[in-house]
């Protein structure tokens, strides 16, 4: 299928290129208009670009192959590694420029394709396609003590595909209509759990969902103001299926329940979810006077879902809704309805009363309201009786969040700016309480936060830039135990150009968040310190080096209640990481066009703490120009993952890719 697509695309490319080339040649010979002459005289090819074709060899990964696939997933064989073609035919009527780029075609788990077509002042088309394999088969995520099929519960082998297309038309400079179409799909297999009250059974899972989005709008530019109006619609469908016809003992591991062994001989679930909903947005920008900018937007979406669900189970199963009922066959049918009007609005303003002072006012609000209902019909058959019941559900969830910020930026000096401000955030959320919550069938939580903002930006001299941004909050209320409450956050960045060829960049980020409230006592600290070096002596003609190193640390400390004994326990999460990467390019000596290039580098991560791991990815690449148009390249990479607490989830492997690069 992919080869077919490539073939068609290449055919389309050459079909489009042929007349363009003829036109170009015709212009060259006839040399008509002076303007066109100038373009032709440059003698530039009408098509430029690069195509990398090669083959990859992967040494059989040592360690756990499933983990390798979950993290790297590159296979071997012939590949179209990269393609980037740009056509700019002169005088061609249909387009002025066409660009086609893509990567990793021919069996790789990640493919991209991008297509741009443009005719100056007439239209512009942008299309992208991406295909990302989502393979996840990590036992440590499931039941680590189970064996056999249970070992890989919650596993996926799917493909998420995205298609994006947008066409803009330029009938003039004032109005720009546009239409767009986006498609997002996921298709594949997996293993998931069928839960029947006191037991869980791993079943095959066929995943199949997709969403189409259509939107169109118009942008209007009135010189000092601008308006965009857009309207769109989505269509969603989910046809997930879960099934098994094997006899399964479930997750209880053979432990009887009230003297009976629970098992499943036939289990099927079919989801038939349909949805969609319209959305609209209005964007507004104005600059009525030189000293004021106004920005505003009103956004509205109203997604809806109409779920259908059917479940059929056979075996020896238990239902505990009304006492304990062991049944041999059960049927569930559900039909529902959910809708969620979602409104957002933003209004921001920048005033410049003086050329050294800028005052910014921002008001942002976001409101969600979900209303849902469903009817679930259940039939349970035992050898002697049948039980039918119907349950209706009505739920709602509301959430609103508003932020108002005012801040001032003052240029104390041409090279020094200070910033200060205040932000007030508030919100509330209402939703149905948990299953056991007998006191509050409707829970209401609030958010309230006062945040002070500050920052400086200094450029003491042209080579040095210093940026510091800080915010500190005295939170009054937060939604959840781990939410931002009393926190301070700082981000400092220094950029220094020591010489024309040597640049340094340093970043320090720190977030310290605490919630000292009784029963919560949450302490969280995250810090990152990064250093980055870019060295390009003589403009990078011979050597160029990009290197960075990051030291990061996360420490989260909070108590929780162990559900079975309701005793407090500590949840301590620590992640101390060292991360580094290097990319060193060496242009080696040669003669004529034969000037090889060697690239060495890679990356490493070592973490200590709650889930220590070491992940190395060294790489080397060699590029040898054979002719001006054809280069040979070869690349070696090594992947190695080791996790001391999860030794069964480690792997290491070599990978070599070699091929030819065609420059056009």
């Amino acid at each position: 299928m992919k080869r077919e697509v490539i073939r068609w695309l290449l055919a389309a490319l050459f079909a489009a290129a042929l007349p363009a080339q003829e036109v170009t040649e015709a212009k060259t010979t006839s040399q008509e208009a002076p303007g066109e002459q100038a373009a032709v005289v440059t003698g530039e090819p009408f098509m430029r670009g690069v195509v990398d074709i090669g083959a990859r060899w992967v040494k059989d990964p040592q360690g756990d192959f499933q983990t390798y696939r979950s993290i790297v997933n590159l296979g071997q064989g012939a590949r179209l590694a990269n393609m980037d073609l740009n056509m700019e035919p002169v005088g061609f009527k249909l387009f002025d420029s066409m660009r086609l780029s893509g990567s990793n075609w021919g069996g790789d788990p990640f493919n991209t394709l991008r297509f741009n077509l443009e005719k100056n002042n007439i239209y512009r088309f942008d299309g992208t396609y991406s295909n990302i394999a989502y393979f996840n088969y990590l036992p440590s995520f499931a039941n680590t003590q189970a064996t056999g099929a249970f070992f890989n519960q919650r596993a996926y082998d799917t493909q998420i595909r995205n298609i994006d297309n947008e066409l803009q038309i330029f009938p003039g400079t004032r109005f720009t209509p546009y239409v767009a179409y986006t498609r997002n799909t996921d298709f594949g297999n997996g293993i998931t759990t069928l839960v029947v009250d006191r037991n869980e059974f791993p079943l095959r899972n066929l995943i199949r969902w997709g969403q189409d989005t259509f939107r169109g709008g118009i942008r209007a530019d009135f010189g000092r103001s601008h308006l965009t109006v857009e309207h769109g619609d989505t269509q969603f469908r989910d046809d997930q299926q879960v099934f098994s016809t094997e006899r399964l003992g479930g997750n209880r591991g053979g432990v009887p329940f009230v003297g009976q062994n629970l098992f499943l001989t036939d289990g099927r679930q079919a989801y038939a979810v349909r949805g969609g909903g319209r959305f609209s947005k209005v964007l507004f920008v104005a600059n009525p006077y030189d000293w004021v900018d106004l920005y505003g937007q009103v956004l509205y979406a109203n997604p809806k879902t109409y779920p259908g669900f059917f479940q059929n189970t056979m075996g020896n199963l238990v239902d505990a809704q009304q006492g304990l009922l062991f049944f041999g066959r059960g049927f569930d049918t559900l039909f529902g309805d959910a809708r969620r009007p979602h409104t957002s609005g933003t209004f921001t303003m920048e005033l410049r009363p003086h050329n050294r002072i800028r005052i910014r006012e921002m008001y942002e609000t976001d409101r969600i309201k979900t209303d849902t209902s469903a009817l679930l019909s259940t039939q349970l058959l035992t050898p002697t009786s049948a039980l039918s019941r119907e349950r209706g559900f009505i739920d709602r969830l509301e959430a609103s969040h508003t932020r108002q910020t005012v801040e001032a930026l003052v240029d104390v000096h041409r090279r020094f700016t200070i910033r200060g401000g205040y932000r007030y955030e508030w919100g509330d959320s209402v939703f149905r309480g948990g299953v056991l919550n007998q006191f509050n069938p409707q829970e209401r939580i609030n958010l309230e936060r006062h945040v002070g903002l500050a920052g400086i930006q200094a450029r003491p001299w042209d080579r040095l830039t210093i940026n510091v941004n800080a915010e500190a909050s005295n939170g009054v209320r937060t939604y959840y135990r781990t939410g931002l409450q009393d926190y301070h956050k700082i981000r400092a960045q220094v950029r220094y150009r020591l010489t024309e060829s040597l640049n340094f960049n340093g970043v320090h980020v720190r977030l310290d968040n605490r919630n000292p409230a009784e029963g919560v006592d949450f302490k969280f600290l995250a810090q990152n310190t990064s250093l980055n070096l870019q060295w390009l002596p003589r403009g990078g003609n011979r050597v160029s080096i990009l290197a960075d190193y990051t030291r990061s640390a996360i420490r989260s400390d909070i108590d929780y209640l162990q559900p079975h004994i309701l005793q407090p326990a500590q949840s301590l999460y620590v992640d101390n990481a060292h991360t580094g990467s290097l990319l060193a390019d060496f242009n080696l000596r040669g003669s004529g066009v034969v000037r090889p290039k060697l690239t060495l580098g890679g990356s490493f991560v070592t973490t200590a703490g709650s889930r220590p791991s070491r992940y190395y990815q060294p790489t080397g690449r060699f590029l040898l120009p054979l002719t001006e148009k054809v280069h040979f390249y070869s690349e070696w990479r090594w992947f190695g993952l080791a996790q001391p607490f999860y030794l069964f989830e480690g792997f290491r492997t070599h990978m070599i890719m070699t091929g030819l690069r065609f420059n056009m």
Partner: protein
Amino acid sequence: MVPSRLISSRAVWLPPLLLFAWAAMPGALFAQEESQFPPGYAGTESCAMCHEDVVENYKKNRHYRLETNEKRGWKDRSCESCHGPGAKHSESAAAEDIRNPLKLKAVDADQGCLSCHRNQPLQIGRLQNGHARSQTPCTSCHNVHETGAKATAVIHQTAAGVNQQCAGCHTDIWASFQKPHRHRLNEGVMKCTDCHNPHGSNLARNIRTVHANEPNCFKCHSDKRGPFVFEHAPVRNQGCSTCHEPHGSSNPRMLTRHEVANQCLECHANLLSPSPAGVAGGVPPAIHDLRQPRWRQCTLCHQKIHGSNVSRGLLR
């Protein structure tokens, strides 16, 4: 006396003849006439006399459209749309007589760009943007004169180009992508701007929106979008980053905790919900015996953790 009929017929030809004569006269006769440009402006041709290579490159640049577009108001003097009036500089050739956006303070450089580009939907969230707060000028990411592979328009169309540019400053974020569980940026299939709008957004951290006002996460994960009959409230009122580290993590599924039980129980630990402290998340029933691994992987059973259409307990 000349007949009036004859006069009128000659007069018909007079204006075109005069017009032709005016048009055909040598330009030298009009050398003293006023320039076609407003006062202070020199025109692109004057720039090209000294900066020939720059102007030649510039001709392949998107901005060069201004040079021929009468409606935009910069016809034949498009260099000066960014660099300001250049007549004085063309006479003195002194650097201080021309505006160089790279050497201006950020706000002044940006105002130059925004004078044309403010009126774009991309800029709507400009003031909430961290780049605007930290005075990062447009020229940090956009180079105006470069062409070919170095042109911003070309760099920004490739994932590797965008990622490399962002990583230049956001080194700490790029480090997260070296971790084993991450979004696929290193593979060149995703780029930073797929999720973030560097010009600003109405969501925190410049997260792009999709379907008008929803986080861009739902563009690729539209199965998590809902609405669901039974919602999991944090997904809606606090967002994906409550549980996930979207850039990269040492933990499977990019979770922020090493074990699923810790992830869930850190919130689901209140005897009353909301607790006296006002936070939500009730403790699960006592059957969840954490001594058994079966119960430590909450999503083994609560598989529809992002929201369910069938089960209030998010079981199916």
